[in-house]
């Protein structure tokens, strides 16, 4: 069990995303997950061993480290990555449910199980709201736990059994701060992407709904926007290419690579 699991999960989600959703997946893979695994993890690797206090009292260092770092930055970062990626599972489950239903009834119930309309639209919107919510919660948590996004060189500790106020030195504070800012910047970028995708989907489907009502009103019958998932309805108005879920990036490595490319 490793980050490869998350990578495979998100590759699966990519199929049902909009264009902005795919950009979000790319940002999460490359600027968050890859940076975490390739660079950030090693900075925090020996943080406890390298945390040094100006005292020989046994236990003082342990207690002071625990007091100032209740949960390490790197663990919070990992939790954030996991929690931010999981709402996408809701979409995967919903699509699987639709496909199962089609199999059970042995007939085509939906235009395409992966197309974002009807109930799947609401699931998708909820997943976006949850993703954004988790991002914001973690940013606030980082801010509150560590008094801003600064990492000091030195902390003064007077927790028992330290005999009095003791100077404790944190290892690699500048490097940690740089990567912390990088984390914050990518989080904010992901929040912006999620919010734009949310507004784009809401606008698109509101316009669609309004146009349907308008055309049906002209023909003298009432319309119902929520039944758009079933095949009996007319085809949706021609949409631009970014929204179509069949858009796929040709990112399989050539030469017969068996690995799943994260962005297809």
């Amino acid at each position: 069990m490793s980050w490869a699991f998350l990578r495979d999960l998100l590759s699966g989600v990519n199929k049902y995303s909009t264009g902005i959703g795919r950009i979000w997946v790319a940002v999460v893979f490359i600027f968050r997950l890859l940076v975490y695994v390739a660079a950030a993890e090693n900075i925090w690797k020996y943080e406890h061993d390298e945390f040094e206090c100006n005292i020989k009292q046994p236990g003082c260092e342990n207690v002071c480290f625990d007091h100032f770092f209740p949960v390490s930055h790197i663990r919070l970062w990992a939790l954030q990555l996991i929690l931010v990626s999981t709402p996408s599972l809701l979409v995967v489950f919903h699509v699987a449910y639709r496909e199962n239903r089609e199999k059970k009834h042995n007939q085509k119930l939906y235009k395409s199980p992966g197309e974002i309309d009807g109930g799947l639209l609401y699931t998708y919107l909820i997943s976006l709201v949850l993703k954004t919510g988790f991002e914001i919660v973690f940013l606030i948590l980082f801010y509150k736990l560590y008094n801003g996004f600064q990492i000091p060189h030195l902390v003064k500790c007077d927790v028992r059994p330290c005999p009095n106020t003791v100077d404790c030195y944190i290892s690699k504070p500048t490097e940690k701060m740089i990567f912390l800012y990088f984390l914050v910047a990518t989080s904010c970028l992901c929040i912006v992407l999620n919010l734009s995708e949310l507004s784009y989907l809401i606008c698109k489907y509101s316009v669609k709904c309004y146009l349907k009502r308008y055309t049906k009103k002209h023909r003298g019958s009432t319309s119902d926007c929520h039944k758009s998932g079933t095949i009996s309805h007319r085809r949706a108005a021609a949409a631009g290419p970014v929204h179509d879920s069949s858009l796929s990036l040709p990112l399989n490595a050539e030469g017969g690579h068996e690995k799943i490319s994260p962005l297809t």
Partner: protein
Amino acid sequence: MDWGSLQAILGGVNKHSTSIGKIWLTVLFIFRIMILVVAAERVWGDEQQDFVCNTLQPGCRNVCYDHFFPISHIRLWALQLIFVSTPALLVAMHVAYTRHEKKRRFRNGEKIDIEELKNEKIHIRGPLWWTYTSSIFFRIIFEAVFMYVFYYMYDGYQMPRLVKCDAWPCPNVVDCFVSRPTEKTTFTIFMLAVSGICMTLNLAELCYLVAKICMKQSRKTAALK
């Protein structure tokens, strides 16, 4: 998730690159990513543990290490590789968009062979030319920026054996010794040389693309006349 995933992503871009682009990709994988993972990471692995200062004052070592190495070489290289590889994704996205447009036209009734579409090599012309050229341009910019950052942060590309540190709480000017300075200098110069080669390849590719389009235009105007 590791460099292998990045390799899988970039491998797909390879199909639509020029020959120089394919050479660049090979150099990137073999002489940069592989060297970073297999060798350089081990050289820098024990950098703080073996950074020794001539004092017993607790905290002095931490503070001096942080003062002289605000961000480690190995992390800067990892970031450089990530940033330099990302523009290639723009090309991948554009190719995906082009393919999707063709599929849409097929669905609307035009006759296009789907199997051929999947394996078709998309030629670098029109809007794709602009995307490809801008991706090369960004690559060059990122390489140059990182090379400059290295130079600026570490006053050149040499790793000193000894640094003199007087940051608080060190009691006075203290000698601190860097671990494996020669090996680190060797790798720094190697990575610098490979960066230079990559930049040269990118510049050559850029010139080639521009020359190709100019020749095409002149042939068109000659044919019209």
